Structures are given as C-alpha cells and as structure tokens.
C-alpha cells in the first residue's frame, strides 16, 4: 500500500540512519572530518561531491565496511556498531554498486535467493524459488525468464535484480552507489521508476551519482561533501543547478570580481591544433588551439569528458574523427610514444595507477620518459641518470631521502613532482596536466602552481585540467568548459572567473550559459 500522507511529509520523518560528527583518518589526512548525515524514511537523498570529497568513505562507514575513528552512527535513533557489511545488511541496510555484485552465470532466481534458498529434505526447492522470484520481480515491473542466467540480461535488469535482492534482505535503507553510470537513458528511466516505487513504500534511499540531471530528476534532498567536510544538506526543491555546482566546487554564493592577473596571450600561431577531434562513446568532437606561452584551463565535473579529451590529445586513445595539426603539418597520434616524439607530455589524473612506477627508484621514475624518447639502445648510464634526476629534484624541490629509494615511499605531493620532473626532463613543448594538484599537501600544491607559471613564462604550451576554480582562473589565459562529454564553452578575458565557469558547468543543454561562449 502506498501511504501518501507519509510520502508527502517525507522531509519530516525521523531519521532512519544517521551519522553524527563522523571522523575517518587515513594516515595523515582526514577523509571525513566531523560529518553529519541524516537519512529519512521515504526519501531519496543524493550524496554529491568531487573525487576525494569523502562520499565513498561515508558510505563505507554507514554500511559497515569501515569503522569510524570518531563520531557515531545511529539506526532509528539508537547508536549502532556495524562489524561488517553483512552485519549492516542484517540491520536493514542494503547496497547496490555500479558493478553488479551477483553471480552472472547463475539464474536470476538463484541470484535472488542465494544463501536463503527454501529447502525440503535438504534439497533446494527450485520451482518454489522460481515462483517466488517471478512474484518478487513483478512488483518491480519486471517480467523476465527467471531461469535464464543473470549475465544474459542487460546491466539495467541486473541492477533491478540486485536492488530487489538488497531490498528483500535489508528492507530499511538502500544505498545506490553510482547505479546509472553504465546505463542508457531508457534504462535510467526504468531504474528510476523502481526507485520511486521503493520510496513510496517507505524505503530510505541514498543515491550517489555524478550526473546532476539525475539528481534533480529523482532526489528529495541533497548532501554535499567537499574535502571530507560537510558543505550542507538541503531540500532540492529550493536549489538550482548552479547552487549545487557552487557547493561542490567550493565557490561562495557571492563571487569576487574576476581577477585574472594574466593578459590574454592569444597572439602568435598555434603550436598544436585539434580540429573537430572526437571519439564515439568517449567525447564529442571538439576544436581547440593551444599556443606557446599560454595555459589553457579545462573545467568540468568528474565524468564530463575532460580526462577523455586529455587522453585523446596525448595519443593514449585515438580520435576516430577530426584532425590534429602541429604547426602547419597534420599529424597522427597513434600512441603516447608518438605524442612524446612531438614534444608532448602528460601527467595523468590517477598518479598511482597511471603515473608512478612504484617499485622503481625516484631516479628511474624521472628519467623513464627521456629514456623512452632516446630509445632502447641509447642508454643513459647511472651517472647521467643521477645528474638529470638530481637537477630536476632540486628544481622542483622533491623531498626524497635518496634518489635511489622506491618512489612509492614518497608522499603524494612528491610523487606528483616526480612525474612532472619526468616530463620536464624530456624538454617538452606541450604539457597536459590532469588534476596536478589533487590530493597533495599545501606545500607541494604551491610548488606545482609556481612551476606551471614558470613553464608558461618559459614559453611552453600547457593544458591544465582542474576542479580548483580559483587555481585555474589564476594561471589560465583561456578556459574551456566540459559538460556531458562535450566542450560547451570557451571563456576568455573577463569571462575567466569562477562564477561564469560555474554557470557554464551547470547550464542545461538548451541554454548556453556564458555570454562569450564560443565553440
């Protein structure tokens, strides 16, 4: 039965699940710093924040995967302690992840009743399971063959099966961790019907996503985290998309006037030009010229296509349309090695996975790209490596006890500087930096911003992707804005200020936000 009075008043319901002043510490840093979070019966509560904001840490604490270092978790107003996710599930809290955590090679029915199969004389009652499964799924508007293997169905169906299972097992709280990331538009609608129905039945639902449209389509309230702190919890009805983006990126509601400090450096021919470059399914065609002595900033939320653009520019992925020109010559970038031969360099977003060679020494990590450029047989000997590594370690103030120590033992900031040094050693003319200052300490942050400015003065062309708006407006002579895998605006002059950027990121598809936007 749908209890409409309760649904109407969902925002007044008491908290089912609550976090009070939760603290989680990893090493030196606080992943969560006194965060409050309250989830009511019959609401869809969106949890937003950029990478590293603390979303997943908070969810892991609420579902028992992590234990908080401070603060408390309350269930129905009583303090609880979840030993592990299974324990949380027993308390009524179920989670569905982006990648479905079920058994693709077993039937839908078996997946639904795995671990609690009805038996008779020790034998599983297959027909009963199948009957129950059909009944259960019909409540979710799903009429499918429950004997078929789960893996033969689309991800959307698998998601709904996972939700059905989680709701059956837990029944109070449902955490949806980026459930829509791999769904198409129709599938998302289908999923949302199910979510709406569950909400009306009184489930409390936490919804994590990067897609703002979806947040506005389905959520009642939103909680925004940034750098491990609570920025706020608000009813969504009173918010605009711009408000939400501002809160996520940390811009005050009242903006300071645009202070760019850098004159337009649009003069001079392009060093490299991307003309209508794109890759189906990754990024819509974009055009961009980058000149010597300028920094082009790239703004956009996670998943907006900014990293995809960078990888295309560096030959890590290949365009399936468009043209790349260096000077006047058209070139093809089939691999990073080819891009490097043209003087390109790329600091990837994920240092650990794509950047450092953890077990190798600081010295080897610095010389590797230069050695790659020199080829297999023109080897730098140890002394030459030492000299090069030593020079750049000093230039960038890399704090390592020894250049021969494994790079994985350095702090995040120093690792980032090592990767920067790796590219500077190749004497590049075009550097692509993807979130070069994320997750590093203040000192290293300042050093990297200083280096970006110095390299621009020295005449390099740079493309810097960053979520730190204050930072990119300070050193960019132009800023391109990405949204939904598309370059939606190119901002110059007075438009280089955080408020225009936020508007361009938040704008709906129909309305081009920024005046002066030109693509």
């Amino acid at each position, binding site marked *: 039965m749908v209890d409409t009075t309760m649904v109407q008043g969902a925002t007044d319901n008491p908290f089912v699940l609550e976090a009070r002043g939760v603290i989680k510490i990893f090493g030196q840093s606080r992943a969560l710093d006194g965060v409050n979070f309250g989830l009511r019966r019959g609401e869809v509560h969106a949890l937003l924040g950029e990478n590293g904001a603390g979303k997943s840490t908070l969810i892991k604490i609420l579902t028992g995967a992590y234990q908080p270092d401070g603060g408390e978790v309350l269930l129905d107003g009583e303090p609880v302690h979840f030993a592990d996710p299974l324990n949380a599930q027993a308390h009524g809290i179920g989670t569905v992840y982006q990648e479905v955590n079920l058994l693709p090679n077993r039937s839908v029915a078996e997946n639904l009743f795995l671990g609690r199969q009805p038996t008779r004389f020790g034998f599983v009652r297959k027909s009963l399971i199948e009957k129950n499964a059909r009944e259960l799924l019909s409540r979710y508007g799903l009429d499918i063959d429950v004997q078929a293997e789960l893996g033969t169905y689309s991800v959307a169906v698998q998601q709904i099966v996972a939700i059905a299972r989680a709701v059956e097992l837990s029944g109070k709280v449902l955490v949806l961790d980026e459930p829509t990331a791999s769904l198409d538009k129709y599938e998302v609608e289908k999923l949302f019907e199910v979510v709406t129905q569950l909400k009306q039945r009184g489930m409390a639902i936490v919804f994590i996503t990067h897609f703002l449209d979806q947040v506005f389509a389905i959520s009642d309230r939103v909680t925004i985290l940034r750098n491990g702190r609570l920025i706020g919890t608000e009813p969504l009805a009173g918010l605009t998309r711009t408000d939400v983006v501002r809160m996520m990126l940390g811009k005050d509601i009242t903006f300071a006037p645009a202070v760019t400090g850098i004159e337009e450096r649009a003069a001079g021919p392009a060093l490299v030009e991307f003309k209508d470059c794109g890759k189906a399914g990754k990024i819509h065609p974009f055009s961009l010229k980058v000149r010597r002595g300028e920094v082009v900033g790239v703004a956009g939320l996670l998943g907006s296509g900014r990293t995809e653009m960078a990888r295309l520019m560096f030959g890590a992925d290949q365009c399936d349309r468009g043209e790349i020109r260096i000077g006047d010559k058209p070139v093809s970038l089939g691999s990073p090695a080819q891009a490097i031969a043209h003087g390109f360099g790329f600091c990837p977003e994920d240092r650990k*996975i794509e950047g*450092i060679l953890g*077990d*190798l020494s600081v010295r080897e990590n610095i010389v590797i*790209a230069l050695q790659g450029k020199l*080829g*297999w047989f023109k080897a730098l000997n140890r002394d030459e490596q030492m000299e090069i590594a030593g020079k750049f370690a000093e230039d960038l103030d890399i704090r390592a006890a020894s250049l021969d120590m494994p790079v994985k033992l350095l702090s995040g900031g120093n690792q980032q500087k090592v990767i920067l040094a790796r590219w500077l050693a190749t004497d590049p003319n075009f550097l692509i930096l993807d979130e070069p200052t994320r997750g590093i300490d203040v000192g290293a942050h300042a050093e990297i911003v200083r280096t970006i400015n110095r390299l621009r003065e020295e005449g390099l062309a740079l493309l810097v992707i960053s979520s730190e708006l204050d930072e990119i407006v300070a050193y960019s002579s132009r800023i391109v804005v990405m949204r939904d895998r598309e370059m939606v605006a190119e901002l110059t002059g007075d438009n280089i200020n955080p408020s225009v950027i936020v508007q361009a990121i938040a704008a709906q598809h129909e309305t081009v936000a920024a005046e002066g936007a030109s693509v």
Partner: protein
Amino acid sequence: MKLKKFSRLINPQSIALVVVLLVNWALFPGFFNVTWQDGRLFGSLIDVLNRGVPVAILAIGMSAVIATKGVDLSVGAVMAISGAVAATLVTDGYPAYVAVLAALAIGIVCGVWNGILVAFLEIQPIIATLVLMVAGRGIAQLITAGSIVTFSDPLLIFIGTGSFAGLPMPVVIAIVLLVLSVFLVRSSAVGLFIESVGVNRAAASLAGIRSGLLLVAVYGFSGFCAAVSGLIVAGDIKGADANNAGLWLELDAILAVVIGGTSLLGGRFSIAMSVLGAIIIQAMNTGILVSGFPPEFNLVVKAGVIILIFTMQSPLATRFIESRKNARALARKAS
C-alpha cells in the same frame, strides 16, 4: 669498498649453493674432485654445470619474461620443437648450420607468437603460453612423425657433447649467452624498460615506452633461449625426442628465476641470479644421484631446500635481519 663488494656476494642464493655443495661433498667424498682427461675437465662439479645448462639457459629468457609480470610455460615444448626441426632437417640432408639457424628461427617465431597473444590480444601470460605448451609438443611430434629422429651430424652432436677450452660445449654456450644477455640488458635501456612494464604497464606506456613491442621482443628472446636449450638437449642424445625433450623444464626454469630472487609480480630482475638458481637446482639433482639415494628422494629434498631458500628471502626474515642490523648499529654507536 672491497668489503662491500664481498658482502654483496653473501645472499641467500650463494649460501644455499654452498650448503648444497657441502652436503653433496659429505655424502660423496669425491664430489669436489676435478680431473683433466683428453683435453677437457671431468668431475661432479663440471657435471653439475653441464647438466644444469638447459634450465640455466631457459632461466635467462624466463627472467626477462617474469620481470614483465609474465610467465612462459611453453619453453619446454619449444625445446622439443627446436630439436625436432634440427634433427629432421639434418636427416633430410640439409647442412647442419641451416638446421641450427632454422631451429633458432622457429624458437623466435614461437616466442613472438606468445608475445603477440600477451601484448596485443592481452591474454593472461599463463594462459597464452599454455596454448603453445600443449600444442607445441604436438607440433614437435608432427615434425618427427611420432618417432625419435636420430642423427649423426658432427656439428649438432658437438653442440651437445663437445668441449671448448676444457669446458663442455653446453657450458661454454651458456656462459656466452649469459654474458651477452646481461650486457644487452644492462648496457642498453632494455632492462629499465622491462622493469617499468613489469611494475606498471599502463604508466610505462604513458611514459612513452612501446610496451607491446617490448613484450613481443621479451617473449621472442625467451623462445630463442628455449631453442638453444633444445639444440643442446638434442645434440646430447644425438636425436630429437618430441615426447620427452624439455618435459617439465619450464617449471624448473620458473623455479630457478624465483630462487634467483625475481618476483613473480614483475619488476626487478637479475639474469645472473636466475642462472645461479638453475645451478642450485642441478647441484641438488646431481648430489642425490651421486650419493646413491634413489632418485625419488630428489623431488622431496628439492622441496625442502626451496622452502628454506624462500624462508630466507621472505619479508619476515628480511625484517628480522634488518632489525638485528639496526640493533647492532645502535649498540656500536652507544659504545
């Protein structure tokens, strides 16, 4: 300085080798006797080296493969193919040098095939090379038409049983291959690239290393080593036995590399230490043989020694030794 160099020689592997040799000596007093007859050296020690060559040569190629976070299970089968090709060609009347070159070329082709599966089709190395491990022996049997092909070609026999400068020819070949490959890997950037790809292929590729090409080259080199090994084994028995040549030797080669201290997780590697590992394995085999124990003991004793070596290399032991060292250093400072 001199002391430091000397201390570098003290590692679990050399200690293990010395212990195994001493045990052999205790069981068989004549173990260290080396005599000079007919212009070449004879004795159990020489025998250890000579018999250890096939695995040692496989281990040279395997070191590089394992350093890339891979493994090459096909080397035993490739040995059989290489021997079969050489034997069949000489019995068909081709000159011996053609047979040798063809066998080596086939070995490289096999390795390149593995490399393509691993590098470009991105099949897991253990599965990719399993294909040729199984199929390769079949291919060898097809080449020899199911029988043991014997030959009397002096060059092929010389490769397996001849001697040069007093040493058995296989040992000379292994030494040359060892020196050349260490030189190739360490004087060029290849060693650094192999380690980079093994530690983090995604990052290495983004740093401009053509990791696909490198992997193909590394597996190709492993195939080449297997072919050399296959020629030696064929020359030794004056025939190609497609069923038994190199059987299970891929496992000994992997063992030799791991005993040599290269991690199966890829990264740092040492070809010389892998060869040392191969010699340790053979010293155990020979020791049990000459001491008169039934050869069945071999497998069990081998397991025991290997557990001992791995215990000495384990993080636990390393931490223990480090802490002892630190404690001693502190004590020295205090006094």
